[in-house]
């Protein structure tokens, strides 16, 4: 697992270096466009983490096996981490390109609402420890992901209330290969780091549970 982490970090360094130094400057936005190489991977990684939370929660409710609960718990933490990254890098990018830290763009609003939902998830974990808290968190993990399409839909409705500039379309104009390669490298780097951190966290949780059992059980 150590190898995975170092591989991820190495890849990330390569990706960032490539993005900052070698990649061409985009014509319309200029330098700020380089934030994309961090913003887009963190969005993808965040949603991957949320899917892991969803899968872990469903399997935990169905199988009642603590292993799935630990996976969901760790993935939720990482999900919040990467959503925070997405929101902050997105805000900075927005400020750089058209001077607004926040716009009620459908995707940004969805990500923000998800951030609150999974902060709630972590709070339930903290304030309702034990088996009941785990089940409560699992249900929130499921509801959170089920809610994504609705949130997105309502965010679009919200946008009709707030006229605002057209949002940067990352997937709009096809990215030239010189930009696509560093983006993919960074994407892979983020996902490898996610996996490594996930494995590390699950191992920590397993040890913690085992220790808790040893201390309390006394058997």
């Amino acid at each position, binding site marked *: 697992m150590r190898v995975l982490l170092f591989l991820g970090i190495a890849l990330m360094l390569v990706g960032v270096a490539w993005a900052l130094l070698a990649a061409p400057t985009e014509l319309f936005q200029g330098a700020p466009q380089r934030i994309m190489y961090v913003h887009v991977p963190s969005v993808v990684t965040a949603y991957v983490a949320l899917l892991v939370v969803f899968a872990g929660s469903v399997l935990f409710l169905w199988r009642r096996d603590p292993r799935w609960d630990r996976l969901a718990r760790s993935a939720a933490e990482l999900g919040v981490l990467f959503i925070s990254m997405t929101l902050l890098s997105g805000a900075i990018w927005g400020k750089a390109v058209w001077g607004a830290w926040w716009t009620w763009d459908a995707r940004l609003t969805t990500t923000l609402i998800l951030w609150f939902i999974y902060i709630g998830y972590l709070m339930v974990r903290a304030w309702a420890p034990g088996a009941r808290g785990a089940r409560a968190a699992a249900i929130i993990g499921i509801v959170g992901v089920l809610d994504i399409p609705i949130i997105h839909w309502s965010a679009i409705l919200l946008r009709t209330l707030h006229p605002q500039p057209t949002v940067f379309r990352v997937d709009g104009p096809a990215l030239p290969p010189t930009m696509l390669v560093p983006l993919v490298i960074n994407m892979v780097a983020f996902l490898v780091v996610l996996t490594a951190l996930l494995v590390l966290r699950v191992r920590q949780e397993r040890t913690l549970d085992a220790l*808790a*059992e040893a201390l*309390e*059980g006394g*058997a």
Partner: protein
Amino acid sequence: MSGGAPERWAVEVRGLVKAFDHRPVLRGVDLRVRAGETLAVLGANGSGKTTLLRLIATLSSPTRGSVTWFGEPSAPLPEIRRRIGLVPHESLLYDALTVEENLKFFGGLYDLAPERVESALDEYGLRPLALRRVRVLSRGQRQQVNLARALLHDPELLILDEPYTGLDVGAADRLTATLRASAARGCTVILTTHDPDGAGALGADVTVMLDGRLTEIMPAAGLDAAILAAWFREGRR
């Protein structure tokens, strides 16, 4: 454990383990109760008696091991619940409602005819209390209403958690009489208590909860000093 012919057991518990957040309360309980039998589970407070009862009453699921009711391992739980009555330690009655309203509500839960509630009011001598709010009743009266509630749907298995605590002599005798009557009708009765004399009065068999496991089932008189001593030691620990 008396082998006996493989007749249907009212309740069969095999290798039952129950842990709450890594803390094992039941460490492998084995128990078989024949239909129509009355069993008293003795044990100190916090020895897991209530946990065992909640498992037998289908209110919680075991961490490991199994509980089989009426010899039907695959029967759906709602069906089993229709044949079980529970008198837990805390009263399940709604204090703001009157005795009659409570019984009508619980009767409705089991889809019983209104006449059943009327007959229960007379059968348990609750007619005079019918219109009084449960909040104003004494513990003995409340126990009587709880008992009526649990027996309303004529369960085949009646489970009581510490029914004798806090009862005056009169109420205790009434309780014993009611339990005897139910047993006579073939109803299996399982109750917990931490007072061995109560079990003796009922003529029930006895088992003791020690360290998360149950001892052999034996007649109440058969309680030998060794087990009682071990049980008191555990109580004080």
